C-alpha cells in the first residue's frame, strides 16, 4: 500500500480498523447520498428494501417537494395494486488514454488505446411492482437497454412480518455495502456487488428503530446455475441517524475447485451543513487452491448541495488489486455535477481521472461524460 505520508504508511487491514475505530469513537452517528442527506433508510424511497430500483410512493413524492413538476400529472401508480417505474441514462462520453510506458524485460507488451468518443445508452430499466396485499409484493427489475434485455431482479417480497422483518425470495442484488449508482467505482467493480450482478436465493432482514439488517443466502454463482452445495452469505447492517450513518458488511462464498471469496467492509455517511460525505473501505480475499489474493478498495465521496437542483460530487477511490505486490495500486478521482431539470430528469456531467502504473494505458485515462437521466 502506497501512502503519501510516511507516518501513515499502514498495512491495509490496520488502516481499515483505524478508520473503523475513528468512526466508532466519534459516535458518528441510492444514490446513497440522498438517504444520508435526509437521514433515511433505503427502504423509505425504494420498493426493494436494500435500495436501488423502483421507488415507493414516498420516493416518487420526494422530488416533488424539491423540484417543479411542470405540467405533468403523470403517476407511476396505475392503481392500488400495480406500480411501475423506470430509468434511462443516455450519455455522450469522451475518453483519452495516456501512452503506455514500455517496460524492459516484461513478458507482455504494453498496449496503447486510441481515444474514444461515443454516444451510449448506459442503462435502461423498467420496474413493475404488483402488490397482492399491503405486505406481499412481486417485484420485477428488467433491464431493456443496452443490447438485449436482462432480468436484474425478480422476487417476492413479504414485508411487515414479525418485529418489522421481511423476506425476499427470488433473484435480487445482494445486500452489501453502499449501493452506488456508479458500477465503475472500485468498491462496486472489484467486490462484484454491483448492478450487473444479482443472485438467486433468499434474503431476510429487519429494521428495528435506527438499525437495518439484511442477510442474503444465495447460490453464490452470481445468477448462473448452481454448481455446488455451498451457499453465499451476504450481510449488511447499518445504524442510521439524521446526520450520519455507520455500517458494516460481510460476504463469504465457496465455489468448486477450492475457490473461495470473502469480502468485508465498513462504510459511513455524514451530513455537515451543505456537505454529505460517504466513505467505504473493502477488504476482499480471493482464494484459489493454495493461492490467495487480497485486495483493498476504498471510496471517499463528498457531495455539496449547491441549491435544491444542483449537487456537486467529488470522489477519490483507491484500489490495491493484490496486497502482496507493491506499486500496482490504482486510484480514480471524479468531479461530477448533477442538475435536476425537473422531478423526472437530471443532467449529469463530469470528469473521471484514472491513475495507475504507467505501463498500462487502459488504467491511465480521463473520461468526460454528459448524461441525461430520466426516471419515474
Amino acid at each position, binding site marked *: *500500500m*502506497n501512502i*503519501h505520508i510516511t507516518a*501513515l504508511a499502514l498495512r491495509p487491514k490496520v488502516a481499515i480498523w*483505524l*478508520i473503523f475505530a*475513528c*468512526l466508532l469513537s*466519534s*459516535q*458518528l452517528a441510492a444514490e446513497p447520498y440522498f438517504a444520508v442527506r435526509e437521514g433515511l433508510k433505503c427502504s423509505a424511497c425504494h420498493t426493494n428494501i436494500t435500495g436501488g430500483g423502483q421507488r415507493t410512493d414516498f420516493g416518487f413524492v420526494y422530488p416533488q417537494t424539491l423540484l417543479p413538476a411542470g405540467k405533468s400529472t403523470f403517476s407511476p401508480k396505475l392503481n392500488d395494486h400495480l406500480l411501475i417505474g423506470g430509468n434511462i441514462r443516455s450519455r455522450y462520453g469522451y*475518453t483519452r488514454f495516456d501512452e*503506455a510506458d514500455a*517496460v524492459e524485460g*516484461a*513478458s*507482455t*507488451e*504494453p498496449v496503447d*488505446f486510441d481515444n*474514444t468518443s461515443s454516444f*451510449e445508452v448506459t442503462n435502461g430499466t423498467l420496474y413493475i411492482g404488483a402488490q397482492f396485499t399491503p405486505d406481499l409484493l412481486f417485484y420485477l427489475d428488467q*433491464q431493456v437497454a*443496452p*443490447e*438485449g*434485455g*436482462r432480468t436484474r431482479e425478480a422476487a417476492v417480497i413479504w414485508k411487515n412480518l414479525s418485529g418489522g422483518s421481511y423476506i425476499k425470495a427470488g433473484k435480487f442484488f445482494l445486500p452489501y455495502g453502499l449501493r452506488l449508482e456508479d*458500477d465503475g467505482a472500485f468498491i462496486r*467493480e472489484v467486490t462484484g456487488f454491483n448492478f*450487473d*450482478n444479482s443472485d438467486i436465493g433468499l434474503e431476510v432482514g429487519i429494521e428495528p428503530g435506527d438499525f437495518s439488517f439484511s442477510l442474503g443466502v444465495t447460490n453464490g454463482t*452470481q*445468477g*448462473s*446455475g448452481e454448481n455446488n452445495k455451498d451457499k453465499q452469505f451476504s450481510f449488511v447492517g447499518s445504524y442510521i441517524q439524521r446526520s450520519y450513518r455507520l455500517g458494516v458488511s460481510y460476504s463469504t*462464498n465457496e*465455489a468448486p475447485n477450492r475457490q473461495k*471469496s470473502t*469480502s468485508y467492509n465498513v462504510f459511513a455517511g*455524514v451530513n455537515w451543513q451543505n456537505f454529505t460525505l460517504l466513505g467505504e473501505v473493502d477488504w476482499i480475499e*480471493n482464494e*484459489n487452491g493454495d493461492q490467495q*489474493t487480497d485486495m483493498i478498495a*476504498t*471510496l*471517499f465521496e463528498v457531495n455539496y448541495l449547491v441549491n435544491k437542483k444542483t449537487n456537486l460530487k467529488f470522489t*477519490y477511490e*483507491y484500489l490495491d488489486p493484490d496486497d502482496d*505486490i*507493491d*506499486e*500496482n495500486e490504482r*486510484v480514480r478521482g471524479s468531479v461530477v455535477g448533477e442538475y435536476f431539470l425537473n422531478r423526472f430528469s437530471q443532467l449529469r456531467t463530469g470528469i473521471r481521472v484514472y*491513475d495507475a*502504473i*504507467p*505501463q*498500462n494505458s*487502459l488504467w491511465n485515462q480521463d473520461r468526460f461524460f454528459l448524461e441525461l437521466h430520466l426516471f419515474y
Partner: protein
Amino acid sequence: MHNIEKIRAVLIYARICVIAFILIGCKAGDGKGLDANGQPLVEDTPEPVIGLFVQIQDDIFTARCIACHIGAQAPQGLDLSEGNAYGNIVGVASNQQPTLNLIEPDEPELSYLVKKIRGDEDISGGQMPLSGPPFLDDSQIQLVIDWVNDGAPPPQVATPAEFVAELSDFSAYGSWSAIDYSIGATNNALGGAHQAQDDNYSRRVYANALALTATDSYPNGSIFVKEVTSWQNGEREFSAAGGLLAMVKRGGEFNPGNSGWEWFELNPDVSEIVGRGGNLMDDGCNTCHSLANSQSGGRDYVFEHPSEYQADNSDFADFRSWSEIEERSDQNPLLGGMAHGGDNPDSTRRIFKKQLYANPDSMEQGYPIGTILVKEVEQEGVIVEITAMVKRGGDFSPDHQDWEWFMLDPDSLEIMLDDNGDETRGANLMDGMCASCHSQANPDSGYGKDYVFHHENDPFNFADMAIFTRLKATTNN
C-alpha cells in the same frame, strides 16, 4: 452553542478529516518491477507457452476481464483468471443464454462469448468488457474468432528438447495438485511395490501443472511425485523403502526405450536426491510402469489417477480380523428408527476397519481409495445385518466422494444377491439412502469425515484426539 457542544462538534469533524485524509492519502503505484498487467516481472525464463489461447489469456482475459471475473464471486460464475478460464468457457453453457455455449469449438457464430465481446444485438445485458468503451478492438475480437475456428484448443506448452530436473524442481511438490490417494493393492500392477501389501501405508500422488496439461503422451518437464506414508503416534512417517519417489519426463536422448522417463528417490524432507536414473531400482521402475497403457489403465508409463478399486467377495471374508473401531449397544439418535437396527434397543453394532491407518487428512480426497469399513448388527446373539462401504475412487460416484455401498450375507459373508441374481452393491444402494445418510458425516456437521461417522477407535476420525494418547501409550508398552 455551549463550549462542550462546540468541542464535541470539532472532535467529530476532526475525525472526519482524519478519515478523509487516510482515504485520499493513497496514490497510484509507480509500476516499478511490474509488467503491463501489474504482475511482477519474472526474472527466470518463463516456461515457453504457445498457442492462441495463451495470447487471449494474456492480452484479453488477464488485461481486461479479471478485474471482475475472478474468484468464487466472479460475475455469472465466470472466472477468467489464468488456469481457470479455459475450463470455464469451452463447451460450457452460457448463463444468460443457456442454449449457447460460451465457446463452441469451430463455431464462432454459436459462441456466446464472441457475441458478448462484439456487442451483438441478440445478447442479454451489455457488451463486455463492462468497463468499455473502449471495448476489445477488431484485432482482439478476431483473435478469439480465429482460436474458435481452430477448434478452441487448450493452452499448449512448448516442450523443451530435454528437461534435466534439479532438486529445486521438487521442492514445492506439496502445493501441486494431488491426483491420487490410495491404500492397499488398488492396482494389480503394484504387486508389492510402494508398500501396496501393507495396510499401514497410504500413497499420495502429486502432478505438476505441466503434467496436468497432457492430453496424450506427457511433455518433457512433466513431474509426478509419490509419497508412501504411515502414521506413528499421530505423526506422519515416510516409508523407509522409497517414501518419496518421483518420475520426470526428461526426453531428449535419455532412456529412449522407456519414453524418456527419469526416476528419482528423494529424501522425505526434499533435502537431497538420493538416487536417479533411467534404470533406478534395477530397472524395476521401467518394468512396472511400462504396464501403464490403455489395457491396464493409464498411458505413457503413468497409471490412471485417481485409482479405482473394485471390491469382491475376497475383500470381506476375514473382516472380523480387522481393527474393530467401535462396538455400541446404546441407542444412537443419528441412526433414526431404521438403519442398522436403530429401532431395536437390544442391537449391538460393531464396526471394523480394514486399514486402521487410512487417514482422511485432506478435505478434497477424504479417506484413501481402497479403504474398507464393515458394520455388523447383532440382535439376541444373531447377526442380522452386515453392510460395507468401500472407497472405490475413480469417477465412480463423484457426488458422494466415490464411495460404494454393499450388503453382505450374514452367513457366507459374501455380497448378497438380489432377486435378479445381481450383487447388492452400488453408489445408490437402498435407493440412495446409504449415501444420503452418510453424507451427514462431515466436518461442518461435526459428525465425522468423508461419509464416515466418528468411531471411538478410528485414530483419524474421532471427536477428539484422545485416541492418539492411547495409541502412543500402547506403542510405548
